[in-house]
């Protein structure tokens, strides 16, 4: 089972199953430590297609709504 980062509940922790984005965006994600197989935790989600914040390792990263929708998590 997979779930998009947008749909995941807050405080959900899971591994990234897939990043459905262009190579350029994938690269950007990669350098921030967001890549396939990496465990991340969703912190919050802002209403009205607002940004999503996640915790990756020791950093907190904010992603715009459509960027967040490209990250697919594994649902355990």
């Amino acid at each position, binding site marked *: 089972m997979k779930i998009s980062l947008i749909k995941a509940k807050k405080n959900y922790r899971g591994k990234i199953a897939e990043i459905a984005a262009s190579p350029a965006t994938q690269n950007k994600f990669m350098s921030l430590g967001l890549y396939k197989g990496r465990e991340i935790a969703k912190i919050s989600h802002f209403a009205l297609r607002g940004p999503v914040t996640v915790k990756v390792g020791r950093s907190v990263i*904010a992603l*715009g709504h459509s960027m967040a929708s490209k990250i697919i998590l594994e649902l355990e």
Partner: protein
Amino acid sequence: MINKIFLIGNPNVGKSVVFSRLTGVHVISSNYPGTTVGISKGFFTLGEEKIEVVDLPGTYSLESTSRAEEVAVGLLRDSPKETSAVINIIDSTNLERNLFLTLQLIEEGYPLIVVLNMCDDAGHRGVDINAPLLEKMLGVPVIPTCAVTGVGIKLLVSRIKESCIVKEKRLTHEERWLKIGSIVEAVQKLTHRHHTLREVLEDASIRPLTGLLMSVAVVYASFKVVRLLGELLINKIFDPVFFNLYQPLLMKLSAFLGGDGFLHHLLIGDLINGKIDFRQALGVLTTAPYIEFAMVLPYVVSFYLILSLLEDIGYLPRLAILLDNVLHRIGLHGFAIIPVLLGFGCNVPGIMATRVLESKRERFIAATLISIGVPCVPLQAMIFGLLGSFGGFYVGGVYLVLFSVLIILGAILNRTLKGFSPEFLLEIPPYRFPPLAILGQKLYYRVKGFLVEAVPVVLLGVLLINLLIYTRSFDFVTGIFAPIVKGLFGLPKEAVVALAIGFLRKDVAVGMLMPLGLSAKQLFIAATLLAMSFPCVATFVVLFKELGFKNLVKATSIMIGISLVVGGILNFGILR
């Protein structure tokens, strides 16, 4: 032999602080990614040798994704590896993410030294890094430092010559992360600790409800403090100095000059009932210093104090998250709030900070909106000083008009400009509390920068105006524009001079309005126009540099068009 040192690292790891420590050259540092958008250069001496130090904008990897990153990576690539050293600065509280760039630098064969910065903060957060082991695993020198207090800088200097090239094969990104995982596993020990108040606040500020409440409180408190501190400085320091010490001196000079004549007109200006009125005299020694020191400077000090504090604590990126949604509607994303806030101090650094935005389209929108809808502190201080006496309603009105223009124009630009605006992607830094000395230093340099830029222009400007008024050279220009200014905006023809002076400096321009005896409505319209229409010459130059000639013309036409429309609407439609 090394003659050049590059400082490179992820955004917001303290490169600029290390740079200041090494070279003694002060550069602005803050607690958010992307403070440094340009390249700073300085020198430091190592024994007999003079070595150039280059502070590069922060980058997460050697594959650049923004213009600022492109510049950093390009400069590094073009420099000969034999005569340069690369200092890679790492945030110790976030070793894992930082090592990505470090490994890339090693793989590319740069002569490297690694600096584990912010080691004090890492300690507070229960992060312990075994530096000698890391040195062994990476194969390059690793030096723990705390740049804000200066710990470790001496050691860094003494080991600069040990920077070395390690030949490693190039890894794929995935392999690199795997390797980082094993390094971090070996060198980093985490002690689990209870959540501190700081961590609770960090968390609360990035959740919708608590974040919104916090932002309202922070923004409100900031406005209040800037206002109160500014007034306090005026009432307790600057006004007493001007009225009790300076004025008697000037009265003597006035008497000496005979109370009239050309020189008196230039230096003192016109006496009102035999007395010097600092607000209306328009002399080089009276109104010019009064505007800069007693009306504008106090607010410059209080504004930059609060801005610097918010910057260094690391609150601004959190504000960016909250505003991302709104800014999306005008073709920008959350991070654009930082150039906008800087623009409230002075449009010049604000527009320069738009470099952190990735696309040309965003940069054009942001720069245009800043130069139209964001009034700088000198202008705001004068608006408060002048319109304030008619009541807060008018002052609030100016902001309301500017804000509406900003939103409407932004929405129009977003719909009509080609291309799309990239999405928001930002690392949110932890809260940090800067040592007071660092904060004071930053405030000192910003205020000094303001004085150096402003005072000569204001003095010369007022001198020039006085000469032109005295020789009646303005009458020609006034005659040409009078129909628009009178007919469309409902202002007296003398206001043409003030609006024209706005190109030189906005605060002097508002100052020129003081002796005209305008009604509240006229003053309101004039102040709004001054804010929206042409930017001052310094802003103009930086707009040209950042946008290029074609886009400058485009932005300028938008400014003029909007000013005509809004000025007319305010005169005929809203304010009867």
